[in-house]
Each structure stands twice: as structure tokens, then as C-alpha cells.
């Protein structure tokens, strides 16, 4: 009688250990399958920041012209990326303001990196406009 009881407890112990191992394996499997690789997102963020900085460095923003800036973006951006840009500006007296938005439509279910950069427009050595460029960039 005592032997039977001992065997039952040992079997139960083994069964419980098995359940714990299977749960641990299942959890690890699920974590590995679900964990997202964030590195492409960092690359996307860097490319967005680089492109906007390049537009600033090449004085593209100085035009404050939607078509010209859109053409410059299209010349730089890799074909597998989508980008949207919102430019808002004010003249040096802060009285005259304007804004425009260019680029692709924002996707619904994709990682979108966003950022903004302030810039100034200088013509004939004098500041003519303050501007803000907001951007959204994603992998198509």
C-alpha cells in the first residue's frame, strides 16, 4: 500500500515537471516567433533624418516650393521607401504664414518613423523665413 502511494506521488511529480518544461518551451517558442526585428526600423529612421538634412544642406527648403522639394525628394529617396513631408513657414516678421504637404499617402499598418527639423531661409545675407519640416518615412 505504501509502495503504491509512493509510486503515485513520483508519477505525479514527473507529470508536473513535464508540464512545467512544456510551458517553458512553449513560452520561449512564442517569444522568439513574436519578437520583432527593430533594426530595419532604425535604418528607416536614419534615412528619413539624412534625407531631410540633405534637403536642408542643398538649400532645397529655401525655395519653399512644393514641386521643387518633391522633385528633390524623388531624386534622393530609395525606391523601396515612402515619404511624406509637411512644410510650414512664416516670414521674418511672423505675419505671413503658410504650409503645404507633399509625398505619398501614409500607410495604415506599417512602421512609420517621424521627425521634424527647423530651418531658416536666408536670401542676400538676410533672414527671410523661419520654417519647420515634419516628415514621415516608411518601408514600402
Amino acid at each position, binding site marked *: 500500500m505504501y509502495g503504491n502511494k509512493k509510486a503515485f506521488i513520483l508519477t505525479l511529480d514527473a507529470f508536473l515537471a513535464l508540464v512545467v518544461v512544456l510551458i517553458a*518551451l512553449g513560452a520561449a517558442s512564442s517569444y*522568439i516567433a513574436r519578437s520583432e526585428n527593430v*533594426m530595419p526600423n532604425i535604418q528607416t529612421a536614419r*534615412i528619413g533624418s*539624412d*534625407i531631410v538634412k*540633405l534637403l536642408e544642406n542643398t538649400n532645397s527648403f529655401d525655395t519653399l516650393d512644393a514641386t521643387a522639394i518633391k522633385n528633390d525628394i524623388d531624386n*534622393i529617396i530609395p525606391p523601396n521607401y515612402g515619404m511624406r513631408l509637411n512644410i510650414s513657414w512664416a516670414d521674418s516678421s511672423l505675419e505671413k504664414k503658410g504650409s503645404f504637404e507633399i509625398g505619398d499617402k501614409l500607410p495604415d499598418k506599417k512602421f512609420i518613423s517621424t521627425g521634424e527639423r527647423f530651418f531658416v531661409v536666408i536670401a542676400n545675407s538676410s533672414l527671410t523665413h523661419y520654417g519647420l519640416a515634419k516628415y514621415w518615412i516608411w518601408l514600402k
Partner: protein
Amino acid sequence: MLQHHKHRKKGQIAALDFFIALLIFSVILTITMLRWSNYYSKISERMEYHEMMTKAFQISDALIKSQGVPSNWNKDNVRIIGLAIEDRILSVDKVNAFANLSFNKTKSIFQIYGYKFYFNLTKINGEAIKEYGDKPTGKKSVSVKRYVLYNNEKTIMQFDVWK
């Protein structure tokens, strides 16, 4: 006689029970070991990929955003390599100086031990400007592309880390 027969039968059942238990245990142990080995190799691969990407991002950031240390560095006094005149505008002189550094020296400054690297400057239209380091030929490689202004031209700086 009857008692002896009974004991023998009981012994056979116990042995069969043991072998079934051993079989189940072996199957579970094998599955567990295989799964564990699979997870371990996946996690190791991912960690190595992350390390290579992090190195590539850090080095490319330093190259295109900083002037280096000292800011007017040359091959004899360079401590940190930076190629920028301003944020994401590269200096032609510094790029040339960088391309003339010994590969071992740059690896030591970048602190990429156990890996090789490849640096490449190309115009937006694909025309090659400058390259340095070993082109990736290994099994594992990561590549980072950055957009910069070089010699007043829109340029792509590519930095690969590989082994």
C-alpha cells in the same frame, strides 16, 4: 511453483513498465534538447546581427556627423575618425586621409574586433567615388546606407560590417 510463476510475471510487467517509461522519457528529452538547441542558435544569430548592426550605425553616425578627434586629425594623431565638416557634409580631405589609413589602425579605432568592414562613397546616380576596406565575402554581413553631401554632390555613404 505457483508462487514462483507469479513472481516471474510480476517481474516481466515491471520491466515492460520501465521500458515504456524510458521510451517516453527519451522522446521528451530528445524533443527538449532539439528545441533548446534551435532556440539557442536563433538567439545567438540574432544577438550577433544586432551587434553588427549597432556597430555599423555607431560608426556611420560618427563618420558623417563628427569632425573626429582631434578635429584636424591626420594619420599620426587620429584618436576618433570623423569625416564631417558639418553635420552630414563630408570633407574631401578627411575622406582622402581616411582612405589612406592602414586597415589595422582603422579597425582598432572603430573597435570592431572579429569583424571586417567596407566603406564606399557613391554618387546618387551610382557613380563610384571612393572605397576603402574589404568587400563583404563572408557568410554574415550587414550594410548601412547614409545620405550625405560630398564635394557639393548628393552622395550615398555605405558602411558594411561582415565576417
